[in-house]
């Protein structure tokens, strides 16, 4: 007799392992029927169709609708602001509420980016964004999925995220600050010995008389106590916190010192590392 037949039937899982995710799950929703989404989605065409395509993460449909709109003479900036970004606002709303998951966000982000590309081609230049953020992976570190998520979250929230890639030499990071004068910067690392690139970047910035309102540093082995041992830096806990931190600098002129003190309030949730 196997353990499945002999032992398993004796177990009451309530005393061993509880699937709280199943226990607590609420009723299913249709994204477009959510009242907050309804309030965000535009009423007029073609903006509504574009926003709905982004909401569904349907890149093919969003590209077709954007092209149709552009061909009918609608200004590209209207397509971006009234269609694509509204769709992304609705996606962010559902993600925040826990109805949407990362894959939904990523696919919607892809749809938005394709539509944006079409619109910017028609525009002849880059569209206006909320601000520029530079993202990099520490020198010597090839692990970049965290940085990729950060970039996606920033773009989905209307920021121009400059992606410097992985294993980025400190000098290139400093040059990027000089070139883009970013509102915010993010650095990620997986290892204890590569996170040491962050204070070196800060030191070089200071030597060159450069400053960034804040540099959000996070990733695998990165610790808050280490990040707070040098200036200009903020320990970032979750990738999805990034646009909220950027918003706090843009809208409330927060400095790195203030973000360190108000991190939980800024991101709007309990954060064990800060609370």
């Amino acid at each position, binding site marked *: 007799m*196997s*353990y*499945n037949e002999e*032992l*398993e039937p004796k*177990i009451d*899982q309530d005393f*061993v*392992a509880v*699937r*709280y*995710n*199943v226990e*607590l*799950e609420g009723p*299913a929703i249709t994204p477009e029927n959510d009242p907050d989404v309804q309030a965000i989605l535009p009423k007029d065409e073609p903006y509504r169709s574009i926003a709905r395509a982004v909401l569904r993460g349907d890149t093919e449909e969003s590209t077709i609708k954007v092209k149709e709109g552009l061909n009918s003479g609608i200004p590209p900036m209207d397509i971006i602001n009234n269609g694509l970004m509204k769709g992304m606002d609705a996606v962010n709303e559902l*993600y925040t509420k*826990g109805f*949407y*998951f*990362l*894959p939904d966000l*990523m*696919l919607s982000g*892809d749809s938005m980016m394709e539509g944006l590309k079409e619109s910017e081609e028609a525009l002849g230049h880059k569209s206006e964004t909320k601000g520029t953020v530079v993202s990099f992976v520490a020198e*010597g*570190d*090839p692990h*970049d*999925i965290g940085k*990729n*998520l950060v970039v*996606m979250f920033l773009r989905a929230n209307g920021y121009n995220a400059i992606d410097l*890639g*992985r*294993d980025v030499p400190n000098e290139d990071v400093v040059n990027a600050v000089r070139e883009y004068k970013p509102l915010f910067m993010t650095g990620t690392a997986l*290892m*204890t*010995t*590569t*996170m*040491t690139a962050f204070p070196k970047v800060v030191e070089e910035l200071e030597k060159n008389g450069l400053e960034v309102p804040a540099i959000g540093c996070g990733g695998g*082995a990165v*610790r808050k106590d*280490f990040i707070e041992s040098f200036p200009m830096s903020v320990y970032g806990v979750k990738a999805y916190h990034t646009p909220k931190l950027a918003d706090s600098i843009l809208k409330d002129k927060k400095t790195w010192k203030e973000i360190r003190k108000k991190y939980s309030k800024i991101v709007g949730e309990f954060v064990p590392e800060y609370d």
Partner: protein
Amino acid sequence: MKRFTKMVYKKPEEMVFGRSKFPVSQRWNMQFGAGYVVPEVKVAPVEGSEGSKEKMVAECRNIAQSACERAIAVGLPSFMLEQEHVSHQTNNPEWAAETTRVQAEILEKYYEEYGIRVSLRQTPADIRIEERGLGLRGSDYDNNIEETMEACAANGASDLCIETMGGKALSDYGIARGDIRAILFGIGVLGSIDMEYMWKRIVNICKKYDCRPGGDTDCSQANTAMFMAGGLLDKDVSHTVAALARGMGAARSLVAVECGAVGPLKDCGYENPIVKSISGVPIAMEGKNAVCAHSDLMGNLVCGVTDVWSNESVYHRQEMGGTTPEVWLQATGYEAALMNTALQTGQEEVLRDLYTLTDKYRDPQALILAYDNAHRIGKAIVKYGKDPYLRSRAAALEAGKIINEAVDANKLYLTRFERDSLDNTLKILEDLPADRDQFIDECIRAYSRKVPDFNPKNYEL
């Protein structure tokens, strides 16, 4: 190269911790899979130690000495010390030579003085950057890995491991989007191709020295899915998709053994029970005593059939109970002592089953790694053993089938996200072409533009 087309373990119940079909012997009187479980400790060099060779050597010496002292202090009969390299070590083979040498000297001293069985595992970092030219093949980074492997083997490493990163750009893209085709291409096809390239060279290096080719892990891919899937309430990656990625990871990590790796397979390869069921080589695992490094949903279950019990990794610093090499070796040491007591008293099957049942229905990722289910996935893999694409796909399909059976039997309950993503991914997997070349052509067309870091030439495609 041989491919596994038959199971070494004919029945799942033959599998148990501490025993493997093909035990491995090393210097310092160490055996793996020979009737006892070996605790492992691994500690990440402290920040700042990468500043110079002298600092790194001192750091590695300190880690080894601390571990040895605690092993003796609490009476451990054996242990493995693993040093996972930071990039500075692998980029500078002369650093790796020296750090390995000092650690080997310390272990040997303790072996000679106390008779404690010891093993020194060296794991150079996969520092290759795919998008920089032909980054995976023949780049300076790639050459440094090879030189570092040789430096470790020549200076006292008992065995060599690596966590290869081939196919990661594709699997990362797929994991973040729930795109099972990209995950399969990244893990099953590209990962397998890259492992073959890397492991043939590692095995050849080991042949020149008294050093064993240990094994690989799908850390960079299936573990990425697992870590992003996170806890029960996280909303990033579906736990059912992560379970399917783990199945594929087994078909991929098996390639190291097919190239000549003998084990113990690398600790963070959660797919290792599946690989053990197919190949019979000893494995290292991590779970509840690796909470210092990360969380998982199968902390006990993964003890079930392991031969080495690891803490994964921890900062090198002081805890209330001592420094981390001391504290975490003690933790893995006591767990191994429990398993060894069970082996000595003939209670190993009972303990294995209790370990398994504590987590089996905690999460779909745990369910598929219960030793009986791991064996089922192994059988699905060897059925298509000669084709890494088809066997990876078969592993994922079998994992899905196992989950669905548990759901139908009211033993496991899924959330809508897990349910929907499982249904979608299984349908996509079933509809994929039966021909490897056709699948590869389709994927190259579909992903070359979407994943700019991916260069088919890195895989000779």
